[in-house]
């Protein structure tokens, strides 16, 4: 019993260290605060996959009354809970593949610029035009101008435990 308590404590402190490390990368003034606009990046980089709605809820919980800043003291307990409870787990590869296949109605094995743009900017948690452009630049095959999603999923899978 004592051992599992010890390991539980170890996990909590481990998790907290991870959160601190990620937070510090954006704490430009070294005063334990980050700009609220960066919090999404921090949460994502800790291995979580929240939806936009989840993100908004989280931010609402930790933001300092409209100042535009988030303090580590508020962020740490909330984020620790998120990580310890595995609240926003990663998307399994096969599910991601299916998602792409759903959009690829003709089962071509790739998605064209227009197709992807249409879905990303009109459905779901809308991308801005800028986000789509960036996505296409990063992911599309240069010559053929299409996105071979099967290859992508293999190449861009997330690192194990950060």
């Amino acid at each position, binding site marked *: 019993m004592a051992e599992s308590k010890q390991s539980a404590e170890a996990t909590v402190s*481990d998790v907290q*260290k*991870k959160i601190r490390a990620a937070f510090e990368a954006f704490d430009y003034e070294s005063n334990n605060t980050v700009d609220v606009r960066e919090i999404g990046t921090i949460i*994502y980089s800790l291995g979580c996959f929240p939806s936009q709605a989840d993100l908004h809820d989280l931010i609402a919980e930790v933001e300092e009354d409209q100042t535009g800043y988030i303090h580590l003291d508020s962020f740490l307990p909330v984020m620790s809970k998120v990580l310890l409870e595995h609240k926003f787990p990663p998307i399994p590869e096969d599910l991601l593949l*299916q998602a*792409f296949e759903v959009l690829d*109605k003709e089962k071509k094995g790739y998605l064209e610029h227009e197709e992807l743009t249409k*879905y990303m900017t009109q459905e779901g*948690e809308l991308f801005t035009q800028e986000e789509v452009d960036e*996505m296409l630049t990063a992911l599309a095959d240069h010559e053929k101008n299409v996105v071979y999603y099967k290859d992508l999923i293999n190449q861009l899978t997330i690192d194990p435990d950060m």
Partner: protein
Amino acid sequence: MFRYFTQAKHIFVVEGISSCCAIKSAVLIQRWYRQFVARKEMRRRYTWHIFQSIEYSGEQAQIKLYNFLGYLMDNFTPASNERNLISHIFRENEVCRDAEWERYFCYKNIEVPDLYSGPHLTFPLTVEQAVGLVEAFRNKKQLHSRYVLQLLLETWKQLRLLPNINRISTCHSKEITICGDLHGQLEDLLLIFYKNDMPSLEKPYLFNGDFVDRGKDSIEILIILFSFLLVYPSEVYLNRGNHEDHIVNLRYGFTKEVLSKYRMHGKRILKLLQKIFSWLPLATVIDQKVLVIHGGISNTTDLSVLARVDRHNYNSALRPPKKRHQNVAGKSIDSDEEAGSTNKVFQRRPSLTFPRTLTKDCFQNRSLQDFSDRLRANTVEEVEIHKRLPGPLGPENDTSQSCESISSEDEWRQILDLLWSDPMAQDGCVPNEVRGGGCYWGPDVTEDFLNRHNLQLIIRSHECKQEGYEFCHNRKVLTLFSASNYYDVGSNRGAYVKLGPDLVPYLVQYQASSMIRELSVRQSAGRSERSANKVLREQLFAHKSDLICAFKKLDSGNKGRVSLANWASAVESVMRLGLPWRIMRSQLVTGRSADSSIDSSIDYYEWFNELAIKGANADHIDQSLLETLYRHRSTLETIFRIVDTDNSGFITMEDFRQTWKLLSVYLKMEITEEAISDLAVTIDSNQDGSIDIEEFMEAFRLTDKKSRLERGRSMFMGTASDLTKLEGDPNI
């Protein structure tokens, strides 16, 4: 959560394709992609941080080395061997008359062979010739040393006419173009001229320092800048940077570049450049409202003081000025070579900006680690004190003996601050520990300074920025950096700024290198990361002994494994780079050592095997000596070049031994005569008792087993890696 996924799967399987499906799919993809981008951004920041901390610790190492050598100077008896070895770099400008200098720098008897296919210059220089030089360099020609010397002499004459602070105006609706650090990257200068046209009567330019070092075309950049300065003296302005300094050049590649491009006359060219650097103006003020300087300011910066200094006395900003003592006969003594002189004419303070002097016992019985610990401890205290008390940086200099109201020490510190300081986000003004010179200054200091001098903006360079520029201090300070791809291909853009009579900065960004266009965003980020990763692995390898020691301390059961948390803290305690090791673990711990079982611990012996860095084939040499070599490679090379007084590229066996002795004192390491002989034997192929510096450094280079690239040097080694040779190599 589990429920969500089974539900989603259920929908896919049962309902077939419907618009509800499309939405859910889109959501998944969007979420996945946003996550991917965030992680990429995080990694980019760490990569940047790696390069930057290694770059700055290199600068710090240089200053520490210089301080150490200065300490030796102060504490060895005049006749000792060690002192003679290095005394020449402390020698002040010899008191010579102009006629003597002219003889030394005379180019007239240098013949230009018929075979020479580069540009020929006639003086006075014309615009066509200046433009011709740009073209010639674009076509990879080299200017003959005769013309180089001639050009430099004319430049020297011109610069001596200039004041310490250039004052220019944008009247006649002229826009001035300001460029930041170029660091020998000719491609960037060519790109700027392409986008913005070359300097002319209608197109004034200001170049804000750091023209040389790191890049491979420093001398060509200087030649171009000086040519335009001569042709358009009222339209082209130059500010001195911290790299316009022969001491810094010894480490960062400019000295080497000149000596290798100009084998016969390189030494003379470098000597003349020393003078030219010291005559470069320190600052520029535009329309009495905008200050342009290379580094920054401190809370004691005073433009009226700076306007009055004899700037050419400061050959190297790292060296405080000589105190001129009057002896009984009333003649001033300048040379410190006076035999038997008991006057400590050369009063050097061992530290640059730390108010407390470092005494003799700081160096004895202390390792380099101790030394830096002590500095760090001092620093923390200093920072705390100065944070609470804004104001001048503790004037309790106990070595200052001046009774003048503005001592030469103060003057020197003013120049140092101007060339080396960096802005910080917090209020106050503290010593710049990271670089080892100048200070960090806060927004309150900016505000105060601008008010006092009736200015509205400070434009400075000195720091690499990803977008080529960055505003801070409420947009009152603009950092401008013009060397794109500085850390690595794809690492950053360069920028220049245009300032018209409205004094509103208009920024233009660019990125050189034809390779960039072919790399997708994903590839170029990955490439930078791999490069930084390699640099880091080399550093880790070079600290193997200390790291193993640290791991063992945390491995109580002696299992050869440590937990991830312990691994990270042990690594930081040895490397002291302030990097997020835990987050980087997945990139640094690979192969079998990464097969973390349930307890995610790391087999540290296996980890060193997996680092895949190969050391020199030198089994006969002591492990810790080898590591010293790798770690302090840049320092060692710098000392070699200092010792090589005639700049021949060779040093005698005797001097080689002396150098190692110096290094052993510096690092507080025991290095036996035998060990030194072993080292020499490794590379003295001609057996003639002289060591080829290049050959030696090459023999002890670390190579990366993973990378196919074995040419070029990593950033850690002090010179910029020449990645332009990598055209088409998909693995890099």
